[in-house]
């Protein structure tokens, strides 16, 4: 064996399928996966089988190689390793160590009907479908070609989604539970029980809504000449964004609260009766972009029958839409879910393939369970249907389908940048690699990318560069093609009379193409960073800390700072490079950059304003200020960064081994709504993961240790402010002291948050008029004369509040302070409220927002679950200003302004609220002031916060 080894190893096998494992410390973007692929393409790689999945060092590690059918290696080779060659058509499957999946159960009312085929109510299938999928996906499997048992960490959130606005029941059945083969049955039993109780609530809310129309139906039995009868016209208040958008948004939202650095997926269990309403098509496009950019795979598990004409009225599953979304986001579509509980083979099953394994090919066809299993023959399958509809009456055979897909060249251009960077932008936009070929005798590489734009149209993108890839050769030839049905292409190229929707559709398509070219130009611009010193050479005034740009008041367009010598050509060249950078839209900047976010709340100024919680005589309130902390933070950023783009807003740090010749940069932008600050960071694409990880770690460390500057010693007794009880990771040198007893200079300026708190921050536009129920803020939208834009903003905010209020666990307490003749002054109540806020500060809470007397405080608590130690749960505590409950029926007086003055005969109340993430597990590692929180679940914590 020993002696023949050299010969065997020299024999190179052609790889058919390669399994690659991604490192868990930070997210391995599609981009890194693609550059790994291209750097290894067509090269010979030694492969040594691993004995275990632990201690993986590299970002991407080859775990298993299945050779081409013709190259069968002998057993020794398989055991001891061999060399293989990655070919353009090799299938590379990426696996992660950690996944987060949000299951959204679509409980829209169409599911409360009977499946005509089986005679079973569709709601009855929800939990069984979830069961099949979960048990399938959690069972460990042996990686093909190895003995390695692969069992990733799987964090699961389950949401029961209903578009019914009236149903304010918490929709989260479980958040962030690590599901394993061992606990899956318990987990499902818990889900079943919570699901049932959710359904009871939903049904009772629904039945209340029906009472009205039942009466009207009896009255309208007059016109019998019509066929439109038997259906009641409901005016059920549904969420304005009812349908698939809201459902996916909720999934997207829930994903952000799960452990980061994991592969994300949304899995929708639905009857398919979903769609996009006319008004929502723009929002749908935006959502798709968002999902694609954040690499979230959407999968659909369909319940119930597929289409038939006699289906329940209006319940037509929109299978093509679901398939399109799943394909476009690298997800999977299951037309039915097979039961694999009997399967003990430990081979990868369909659920593993669909939800865990990622490959570039996925974006082409998607993963369809029906396709993989020959179910497409059924006449109701869209493909079969469309072939039948379009069958030519005369011609027969495959070419007989009229209205074939045709392809048209749109544009070609030459980009002065590397193939890798072009691909990285495209991949982030959701394009996928269709095929790769090496042509011209190994001198040139051609990559074909595809983006499914709609069910019926695709954008194809060819990129050609010389091979092997050389980072110094900045030349890529690209070509854009449009592929679609004849009708569609005709529609976009010819100007015919069209309806509104069609016009916007065509416009959107052109905009998509246009933004494609713009993205390319910006890419070339950004990637040229290292090519010329004028881009990074700091002239003296900039190096001295004068910002390059400034933001004129009431404008969003930064202008060149006039403090510099504006005649200087070096400055102008410098500014012309950085101008597009300043203007980058952070919503989409991850196309060109690796983006990260650092979230924090600032320590507030002392002393707190007097009229924070009780109104001035004018009826106005003060707000929490964080000027000192903000100033300290700005100083830090100024010192740490290389130069300032806009003071207080945008900073740049140049990166690279050689400080004289930086190869990359870090752009920081702070989005501030003090006390909440989000620092958005973006690295130039191509910066290695390790460097990014290191740089960010450094910045975070600095922020975490940022203290207030020393000042004259203050008196110890009054207004001592806390510091983050749990957020300091460093072992405390000094004895732990309660937050309220800390010196000002001992306090941290910034309290870093792990979870995207800014996104789940509850903010009230106004004090609710009726404290006994959760108000829908959208009901105030139409009340006053506003511009369309204002209405849209309000509606979005109201919608966000509605989503949030159904996600977070909510508890509200109302205490009656004054009833009848007893007189209590406003000051006394103010005292109570400020004491209350001190208790919270002592417990480690921090101010997060304040608006017209409504104060919101946040705290992150560590949660522990059997397997999972690093759960974090965000607790929000809201105090309302003194509330007067009037004896008037609140529904009569809609005008809020009058409410304030009717104090005389009302009942004075103190109202507080707790909003808490429904994170699974029990609270641990609490500070001494919060010791009584230990071992409590989130619901119990909500109870605990009640006490004075």
């Amino acid at each position, binding site marked *: 064996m020993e002696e023949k080894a050299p010969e065997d190893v020299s024999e190179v096998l052609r790889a058919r399928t390669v399994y690659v494992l991604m490192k868990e410390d930070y997210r391995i973007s599609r981009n890194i996966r693609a550059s790994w692929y291209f750097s290894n393409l067509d090269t010979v790689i030694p492969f040594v089988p691993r004995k275990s999945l632990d201690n993986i060092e590299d970002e991407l590690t080859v775990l298993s190689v299945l050779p081409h059918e013709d190259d069968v290696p002998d057993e020794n080779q398989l055991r001891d390793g061999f060399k293989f060659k990655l070919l353009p058509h090799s299938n590379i499957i990426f696996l992660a160590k950690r996944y987060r999946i949000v299951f959204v159960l679509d409980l*829209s*009312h*169409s599911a*409360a*009907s*009977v499946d*005509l085929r089986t*005679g*079973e*109510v569709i709601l*009855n299938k929800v939990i069984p479908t979830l069961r099949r999928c979960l048990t399938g996906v959690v069972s460990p499997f042996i990686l093909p070609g190895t003995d390695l048992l692969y069992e990733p960490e799987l964090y699961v959130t389950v949401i029961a989604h209903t578009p019914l606005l009236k149903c304010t029941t918490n929709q989260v059945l479980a958040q962030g539970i690590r599901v394993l083969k061992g606990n899956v049955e318990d987990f499902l039993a818990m889900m079943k029980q919570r699901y049932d109780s959710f359904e*009871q609530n939903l*049904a009772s809310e629904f*039945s209340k809504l*029906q009472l009205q129309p039942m009466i009207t139906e009896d009255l309208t039995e007059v016109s019998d*000449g*019509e*066929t*439109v*009868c*038997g*259906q009641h016209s409901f005016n*059920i208040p*549904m969420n304005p964004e009812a*349908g698939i958008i809201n459902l996916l948004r909720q999934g997207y939202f829930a994903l952000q609260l799960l452990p980061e650095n994991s592969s994300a997926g949304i899995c929708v269990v639905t009857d398919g*009766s979903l*769609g*996009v*309403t*006319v008004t929502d*098509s723009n929002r749908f496009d935006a959502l798709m972009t968002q999902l694609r950019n954040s690499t979230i795979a959407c999968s659909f598990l369909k319940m119930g029958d597929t289409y038939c*004409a*006699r*289906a*329940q*009225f*209006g*319940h*037509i599953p*929109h299978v093509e*839409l679901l398939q399109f979304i799943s394909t476009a986001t690298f997800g999977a579509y299951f037309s039915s879910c097979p039961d694999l509980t009997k399967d003990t083979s430990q081979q990868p099953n369909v659920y593993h393939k669909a939800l865990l394994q990622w490959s570039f090919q996925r974006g082409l066809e998607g993963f369809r369970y029906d396709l993989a299993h020959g179910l497409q023959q059924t006449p109701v399958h*869209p493909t079969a*249907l*469309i072939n039948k509809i*379009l069958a030519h*009456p*005369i011609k*027969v055979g495959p070419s007989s389908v*009229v*209205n074939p897909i045709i392809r048209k060249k749109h544009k070609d251009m030459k980009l002065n940048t590397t193939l890798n960077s072009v691909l990285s932008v495209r991949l982030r936009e959701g394009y996928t690699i269709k095929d790769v070929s090496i042509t011209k005798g190994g001198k040139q590489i051609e990559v074909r990318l595809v983006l499914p734009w*709609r*069910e019926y149209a695709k954008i194809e993108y060819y990129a050609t560069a010389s091979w092997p890839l050389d980072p110094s050769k900045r030349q890529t030839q690209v070509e854009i093609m449009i592929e679609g*049905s004849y*009708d569609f292409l005709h*529609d976009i190229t010819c100007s015919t009379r*069209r*309806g509104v*929707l*069609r016009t916007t*559709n065509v416009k959107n398509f052109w905009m998509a193409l246009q933004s494609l070219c713009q993205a390319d130009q910006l890419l070339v611009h950004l990637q040229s960073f290292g090519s010329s010193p004028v881009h990074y050479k700091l002239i003296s005034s900039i190096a001295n800390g004068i910002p390059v740009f400034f933001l004129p008041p009431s404008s969003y367009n930064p202008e060149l700072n006039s403090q510099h010598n504006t005649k200087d050509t070096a400055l102008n060249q410098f500014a012309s490079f950085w101008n597009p950078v300043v203007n980058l839209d952070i919503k989409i900047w991850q196309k060109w950059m690796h983006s990260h976010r650092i979230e924090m709340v600032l320590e507030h100024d002392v002393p707190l304003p007097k009229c924070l919680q009780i109104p001035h005589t004018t009826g106005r309130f003060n707000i929490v200020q964080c000027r000192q902390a903000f100033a300290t933070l700005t100083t830090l950023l100024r010192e740490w960064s290389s130069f300032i783009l806009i003071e207080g807003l945008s900073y740049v740090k140049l990166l690279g081994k050689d400080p004289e010749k930086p190869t990359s940069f870090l752009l920081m932008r702070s989005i501030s709504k003090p006390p909440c600050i989000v620092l958005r960071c973006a690295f130039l694409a191509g910066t290695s993961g390790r460097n990014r990880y290191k740089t960010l770690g450094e910045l975070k460390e600095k922020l975490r240790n940022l203290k207030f500057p020393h000042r004259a010693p203050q008196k110890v007794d009054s207004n001592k402010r806390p510091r983050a009880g749990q957020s300091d990771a460093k072992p405390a040198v000094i004895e732990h002291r309660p937050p309220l007893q800390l010196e000002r200079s001992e306090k941290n300026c910034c309290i870093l948050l792990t979870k995207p708190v800014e996104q789940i921050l509850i903010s009230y536009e106004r004090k609710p008029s009726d404290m006994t129920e959760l108000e829908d803020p959208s009901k105030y939208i139409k009340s006053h004369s506003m511009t369309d834009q204002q209405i849209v903003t309000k509606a979005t905010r109201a919608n966000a509040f509605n989503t949030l209020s159904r996600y977070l666990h909510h508890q509200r307490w109302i205490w009656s302070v004054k009833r009848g003749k007893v007189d209590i002054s406003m000051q006394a109540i103010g005292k109570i409220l400020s004491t209350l806020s001190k208790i919270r500060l002592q417990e480690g809470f921090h101010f997060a927002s304040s608006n017209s007397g409504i104060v919101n405080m946040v705290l992150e608590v560590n949660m522990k679950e059997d397997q999972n130690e690093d759960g974090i749960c965000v607790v929000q505590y809201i105090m309302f200003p003194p509330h007067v409950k009037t004896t008037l029926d609140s529904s009569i007086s809609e005008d809020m302004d009058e409410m304030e003055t009717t104090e005389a005969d009302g009942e004075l109340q103190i109202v507080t609220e707790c909003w808490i993430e429904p994170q699974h597990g029990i609270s641990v590692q609490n500070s001494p002031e919060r010791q009584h929180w230990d071992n409590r679940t989130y619901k119990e914590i909500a109870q605990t916060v009640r006490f004075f």
Partner: protein
Amino acid sequence: MTDFDPVSILLVTSGTRGERLLFQYPNFETARTHQDIAKSKRRNVYSVRIAEDVVTVSSPVSSNTGTLSGFSKAILANLLSVKPALCGQPFDLKVDDLRFIGFPMLLDQSTKQQTSGKISHQIGSFNIVFVLKASVDQSVINCYFDLVKQLTGAIKYEESRRQYLSAEAKIMISIHDDIASLPEDQMHFPYDLIQTKSSLARDLRTAYESVKDKGVVHLYVNKWIEVTFCLPHKVHSKSSAALSVKVNPEVIQRCIEALRPYHGVLLLVDGQNLLDTLSTDCTPALNRLINVIIQQPVRSLQIIALEADLSLSQVFQLVSHLVYWGKATIVYPLCESNVYLLSPSSNIKMNSKIAEEFVQLFPGRSLAVELSEFSYPTKLWDTQDMLNKQQKQQEEKVSMVVWLLQHGLIHQLHTYVFLMPPLKSRLCVEDRTSSFSDVTSVNSDESQIHYQSPSSELASDGSFISEEIKGFMPMEDTMSKLTREEQDYMLNLSAAKNTDDLRLFLRLCPYFNGLHHFEEIMFYEDLTRSQLLTLLDKFQDVLITCQIKKKRSCPTMYGKRPARNSSYNYVQIKT
């Protein structure tokens, strides 16, 4: 009362205390007169002689009067509660002239355990039964199966969720018991009282009533599970003003299968009204589609798909769905060159209700006058109002035509083309054509048929032209299907001298078999109407055109595609 209306709806349960007929609607007072018979039979309902029992009591059974007399409660209960083995599948029982359609369902015993202590009567299985006339068509029965399956499924689900059936059954049983305990003279029928007390009973009544009235059911069982159902036989006979049109799901299915992208869709109901009545959680795509149809009536499906930003197959599914539910019909997109004719089955009585309706919608017009314009096949642009160049009048005309189409008062004629070189050897072809025209009351344009005597010149030129033809490979195929004589004749036509014309003609030849109308040819070959007309004009010597109402299928002349169905099935909803 039509044939497919239900006679009655029944609810039967079977459990620890035997079978019970809990609810029946409508109330048959006559049944009381047979109570004596029923009572005497009660003792031996379990005996093997049950079949005989039915026979003996069957004489008073009558469905003609719309009653369900002759069956006592006990017999019905016994008859309709089935053994567990038969549960979970369709139940179809025919007794004399009645048919019992149900879907017996076994209840989940595990859920019962918890409550076993409290409920005296435990239900093991239940059966909701529609009583129909025995003569009813199988397709109607299948539809009722759908409805009963939905109701049963919904009730079973609600039972497992909230013990709905148990609770409702308890109400019904207690009413039954109360009434039974009353003295004989005060005894009245329990079912009226049950309706006031039990929501399930009300739902069953609603189901019965709405099938009977409209053929459409929409209700929420226990205010939660939605049940929607449509009896196409009923819905479609209502939607057309035409009398005696037989529509069954197969016809609709065939019509749906014949859908092509060039078809248009015409709503049979008011669009806005339809939008308003859509179920709360109806797929948004349907909403979109209807909106597009309202804004741009009578466009082709292809255009609708683009307008609604939906894929074609989705549009097809939605349109088929609307057609099935009687909300829409398939037409050819409205254009001025369309030819319309008075529908032979339309109601043309002067003072009919429909005429009044028409006048209300179009004041100053008369239905009879408008219809008279279409006594002969008439092109839309040839009608009085269209010739009048006033836009307002024209618009009104279009909406009138739409209205007439919606009500099935007129229908469109399509032009079909036959290739018929006037040769002696063409006998078989002629045969088929004549049979074709017989069945379809053709308005064939006789003037188009010119019999030219075959001339002797063709032999000399023939070889030359056929060589040239070889240049166009696909056309050779077409030519080869013709006889030598036919080929020669055609090549010799003066029009054939123009190679472009000849090429187009040969390309279109396969369509000239009476199976494909103008619009279809235009769609598949991407031609304009004038192009096609010009060509037909040039080759009129060998072509016959006829205008008929569109047929679904017809034997092919060129043999390659087998005829699917040679009967000329006229579908009213189809035009």
